[in-house]
């Protein structure tokens, strides 16, 4: 019999009392490629050994070869359920590094797109928690509204999932009327759908009994493990990068940060639902603010930074300066200043940080992504030890682990 490739059977494995279960890299789709070699005693998990890196794509080494705009497509593929947030986080990092200030209208449009991405990410996470407890219907209902969010992205940037949206300083084109029509349709129809989704799960006895009390973590342990985002807020710590280090004019918006108490699976589900309601409110406020710009102000969709912002094609063909800037930007002839910066945004999973070190060349000297999933996945053994195997599966999906972000 051929030797196993993923498990090393140690000595005494016949005499031992626990079963070794390889919850292997080929997971039933949805979660991504993680391996957990668990020791289980009946249904109880005694210990687990984790393996990651099955989708390591060497983003950080890749970024050393690419200039700023070429890095945007690889940031897409970090947390691919909410790629606009990654793109804008990277552009905001570049803007802070290059001292570019974006006009208010650009900030508000960015907020609309980022909050749509946050809703999109939380919808996947919560509906997959439902699927893991056996309820497939919620997933099918909400995927319809994710399709509408994808249509809005398509109007703005042309792509559904890996958006590569925006530029340093703003957007590549003004939002068309169709985009606003679709946004209004979303704002009209989605709250009812979210209410229906909540009705299916929040007071559902089976769901509550599956998720309450499992996978819990205290606030102190969560902070020590480096949790951020909804997982930390479910444990009771109200840390949100949008409030601590506001970016893209988030300080102009009125929203609350929901927190939980026990940090278990049920709290994480409720915190994500509450955040979706807050996101809807933020999008409404941003939309009203955007509509309040009239006349020439309503045409602004990018900052005036010719050194980093690709000019319009009409100008490139007719205007000498625009042609030169276009050439310089595409060929990467614009050098970055020397220095380093750490800048973070609130991604769907928590604090997504970009640590950029530049030595004056055209590509970053070192770009490190502070990936929230990678850091809080370390806590997984502590969350599931002593619990049952089926709770281990629900815990993994309620942590919202995205393999692309974890392995980078």
């Amino acid at each position, binding site marked *: 019999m051929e030797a196993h490739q993923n498990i090393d059977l140690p000595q005494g494995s016949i005499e031992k009392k626990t079963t070794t279960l390889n919850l292997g890299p080929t997971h*039933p789709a949805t979660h991504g490629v993680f391996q957990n070699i668990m020791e289980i005693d009946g249904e109880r998990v005694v210990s687990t050994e984790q393996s990651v890196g*099955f989708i390591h794509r*060497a983003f950080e080494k890749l970024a050393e070869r690419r200039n700023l705009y070429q890095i945007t497509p690889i940031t897409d593929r970090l947390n691919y359920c909410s790629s606009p947030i990654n793109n804008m986080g990277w552009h905001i990092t570049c803007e802070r590094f290059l001292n570019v200030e974006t006009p208010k209208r650009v900030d508000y449009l960015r907020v609309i797109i980022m909050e749509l991405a946050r809703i999109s990410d939380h919808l996947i996470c919560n509906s997959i928690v439902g699927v893991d407890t056996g309820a497939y219907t919620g997933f099918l209902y909400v995927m319809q509204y994710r399709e509408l969010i994808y249509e809005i992205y398509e109007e703005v940037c042309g792509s559904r*999932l890996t958006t590569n949206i925006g530029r340093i300083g703003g957007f590549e084109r003004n939002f068309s009327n169709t985009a606003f029509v679709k946004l209004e349709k979303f704002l009209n129809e989605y709250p009812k759908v979210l209410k229906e989704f909540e009705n299916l799960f929040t007071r559902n006895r089976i769901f509550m009994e599956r998720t309450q009390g499992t996978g819990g973590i205290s606030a102190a342990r969560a902070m020590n493990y480096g949790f951020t985002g909804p997982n930390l807020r479910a444990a009771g710590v109200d840390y949100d990068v949008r409030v601590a280090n506001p970016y893209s004019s988030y300080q102009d918006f009125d929203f609350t940060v929901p927190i939980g108490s026990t940090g278990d699976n049920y709290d994480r589900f409720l915190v994500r639902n509450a955040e979706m309601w807050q996101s809807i409110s933020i999008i409404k406020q941003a939309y009203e603010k955007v509509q309040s710009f009239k006349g020439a102000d309503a045409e602004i969709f990018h900052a005036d930074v010719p050194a980093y912002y690709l000019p319009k094609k009409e100008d490139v063909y007719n205007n000498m300066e625009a042609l030169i800037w276009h050439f310089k930007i595409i060929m990467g002839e614009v050098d970055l200043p020397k220095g380093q910066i750490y800048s973070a945004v609130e991604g769907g999973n928590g604090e997504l940080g970009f640590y950029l070190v530049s030595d004056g060349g055209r590509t970053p000297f070192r770009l490190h992504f502070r990936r929230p999933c990678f850091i809080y996945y370390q806590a997984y053994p502590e969350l599931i030890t002593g619990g049952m195997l089926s709770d281990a599966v629900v815990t993994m999906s309620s942590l919202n682990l995205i393999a692309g972000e974890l392995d980078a």
Partner: protein
Amino acid sequence: MRPVRFNIHPKEAEIADAISMAPAPDGIGGEGFFATQLSSVVGLARKNSLWPLPFATSCCGIEFMATMASHYDLSRFGSERVGFSPRQCDLLMVMGTIAKKMAPVLRQVYLQMAEPRWVIAVGACASSGGIFDTYSVLQGIDQVIPVDVYVPGCPPRPEAIIDGFMKIQDLVGQESIRRRNSEQYKALLNSYGIQ
């Protein structure tokens, strides 16, 4: 100002007498009998009831989830039941980047599948490594397993995934009964080191 393009006046489908049936294969028919090649009948049955194994690793997996959802429903094509056990599945859908660490796992899953089996490589990363020309990414799954259909895109739209699936259906419908035992197929597997 571009006109609104999405469908705000949907037409009602006329389904009163529109029951669509799969086209019958070539053959000789008469009252109460129909004679055709065995491979056509078997192909027809197989192609409309493929059970896929979604080997979803990254972003293409999310587009697959969108394909399985109600908007772009893949179960219209007979794949209502996606399975995760290789022995029970016909079609291995590899969606997403396969890193070198994952390649032995992919190969093992392929080896565990029972004949007849087909492989579809969804997305640029599975077809050729995609945008990740790095030391840790396998530059295309056809380095380790034989592939039948490649679907380009990063990620491919759900319509493209369905198009790839329909091409697999064409391959399945026209496959000869003897193919899996033929010398050519054995030579193909040998070139990958599979006995």
